[in-house]
């Protein structure tokens, strides 16, 4: 059977601040190498509800304050469609500033409170432009609930964060991970990111998936399951370099882990 997934990329012109397209490149390549079709839908002001409902994975990146304001005006019009997609189990990945849009509200650097989509039960405040931003390498341990979902895989994530806002999670979402090094959601409660249904929000910005291939495959797996209503085994790919890059950062930050998973090619497995 020929599988095919549509990746919905939110406002690439307005929300691709710093290497965010790396996540799209990773999904596209990993689908291509497995013989799964990939179609990229660039979501913007002209995207219709019908088009949006065909999306199998939703991807959001970071944006500057002004662009974010343009985006939220249009996103609010798409709110119910997105809510139904996510509630039905369509996976998504929101990096950098885009998680802020999903919460009840967020604040800009100059203190203006802006209404969010309210899909994720969380809220973002800004301590003021004079307060230090959270900048640096970010390593966290994937929360237990998530870990069962991506069973058998490594339990760390590695990223880079750069955000002024501080996010507090409500009871309607679960943290994506627990901070080992870095600030995470707010620099105080050790939570990093959030998970709602099959959607992941993380403060890691830019290219998050290259060094976290397990999360990339989790998104692909969820999307295939959701679309084709069956468990589809994914053929393993040669992720030696990805895990070396992942490991190198853990090593640099003094975090001890087990040895990286060995690559064993299964050429025929998982073509469905």
């Amino acid at each position, binding site marked *: 059977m020929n599988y095919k997934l549509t990746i919905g990329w939110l406002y690439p012109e307005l929300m691709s601040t710093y290497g965010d*397209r790396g996540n799209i490149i*990773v999904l596209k390549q990993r689908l291509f190498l497995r013989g799964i079709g990939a179609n990229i839908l660039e979501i913007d002001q002209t995207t219709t509800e019908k088009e949006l409902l065909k999306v199998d994975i939703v991807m959001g990146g970071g944006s*500057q304050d*002004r662009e974010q304001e343009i985006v939220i005006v249009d996103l609010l019009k798409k709110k119910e469609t997105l809510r139904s997609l996510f509630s039905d189990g369509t996976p998504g990945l929101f990096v950098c500033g885009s998680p802020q849009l999903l919460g009840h509200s967020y604040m800009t650097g100059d203190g203006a409170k802006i209404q969010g989509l309210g899909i994720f039960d969380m809220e973002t405040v800004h301590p003021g432009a004079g307060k230090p931003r959270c900048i640096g390498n970010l390593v966290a341990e994937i929360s237990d609930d998530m870990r069962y979902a991506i069973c058998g895989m490594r339990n760390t994530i590695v990223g*880079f964060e750069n955000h002024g806002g501080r996010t507090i999670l409500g009871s309607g979402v679960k943290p994506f991970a627990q901070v080992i090094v870095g600030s995470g959601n707010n620099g105080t409660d050790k939570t990093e990111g959030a998970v709602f249904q099959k959607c992941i929000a993380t403060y890691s910005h830019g290219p998050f998936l290259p060094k976290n291939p397990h999360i990339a495959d989790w998104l692909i797996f969820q999307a295939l399951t959701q679309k084709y209503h069956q468990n589809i085994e994914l053929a393993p790919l040669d992720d030696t*370099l990805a895990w070396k*890059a992942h490991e190198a950062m853990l090593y640099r930050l003094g975090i001890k882990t087990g040895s990286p998973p060995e690559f064993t090619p299964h050429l025929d497995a998982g073509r469905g």
Partner: protein
Amino acid sequence: MSCVSVRFYLAVFTGRVLQSLLRLIGKSAGGTWPGEIALILCPNFISCLNPKSFRLIVVAGTNGKTTSGKMIQTILSKNSFTVRLNETGANLMNGLVSVFLSHPLVLERPIVYVFEVDEASLPHALSAVSPDVLVLLNLFRDQLDRYGEIRSVVALWKKSIEILSPKTTVIANADDPSIAYIAGFHSGTVQYFGLEDPLLFHNKKEHAADSLYCPKCFRRLTYQGLYYSHLGIWTCGNCGNTHPDISLRARDVKSPLDGNYNIYNTLAATGASGVFGISSEQCSKALLEFSPAFGRMESIVYKNRKITILLSKNPTGFNQSLRVALEHAPSTMLFVLNDRIPDGTDVSWIYDVDFEQISEYKSLRCVVSGDLVFDMALRLQYAGVPLKNIFSYEILKDAIEQLVNQENEGAHVWILATYSAMLETRKILTGKKI
């Protein structure tokens, strides 16, 4: 003798004694802190100088500052001016003062001080001294962790230009919408330069082109053609903001270095030299013997191979370096990625570089090194470079040996490196620090 001039001469005396002492103990140029001390003793040092004793050229922009500055130095020196470039770590004030501590206060011809400033420091530099010439090269997305978003840089620069002395001549890149917009606020003379050559259009939009929006009304700009990134012939259909008329174009100059970006640097240097009465022809002639600044398309012979180093520190710079190197159809290239403070600690931008163009060169071997060797290698893997063509070395020296061993004697090989990586690479190739 007024109180101010007593302080001034005391500052000159103390600064010179300090400079001599530092030279004696082997600090070659003496650094900038004699200037710093002189400024503490006499905060008005610059205004006490005879204004005819110096000319100041400030060069600002994201990419090309060092090369343009060195071109200006070459041209003016060949035309019998005494020129000084700013030293590493100098700010405009202490750098300028240091120059005067090592030269007589009364001169037949003014000393020309060429000062390069980064995006964040320009407003501060301009508030200290008004330059005779201000060169505005370009504004690209650079280190977000240091310089912030382009739009905030544009706003800061605009403010500085609005209050700039009308005596300053601004030399501005008309092909960059943000630069043209900012220069438009100057109350004095502005001379614009641009390529104005449709043959140089490269109409494949680069992913890193981030200023395709009007800096005035924020609507999308219309381009007749793009040279690279967001540089081109642009106009705004909404507010009427448009590409200004230019007085210097590509055909007026002869760039001594490859790449469209070096045509811009040559134009900027020619424009700045024009303020000193030097013609375009004289500039081209002077640049015949131009030797690049270190690591900026500098070629070094190492073990009988010609190695060219291209400093590549942001997406636009990297895309340009790739284009220049790939035009020479090399069989091996070395990429060195570091994430130290001078490089920017966030290397997410490597995913904004169009490395995908490499995958068209099926047999190109990519040697990779640097602090983030595996991040770089991984980027190439995701760009479609076959794993068998990617060679990762955690130790830079090993990578360079591999690069050399892959090639026959006499071959020309290319190294693309971020700032600190470029310095390290040079050190290995030349055996010297700088």
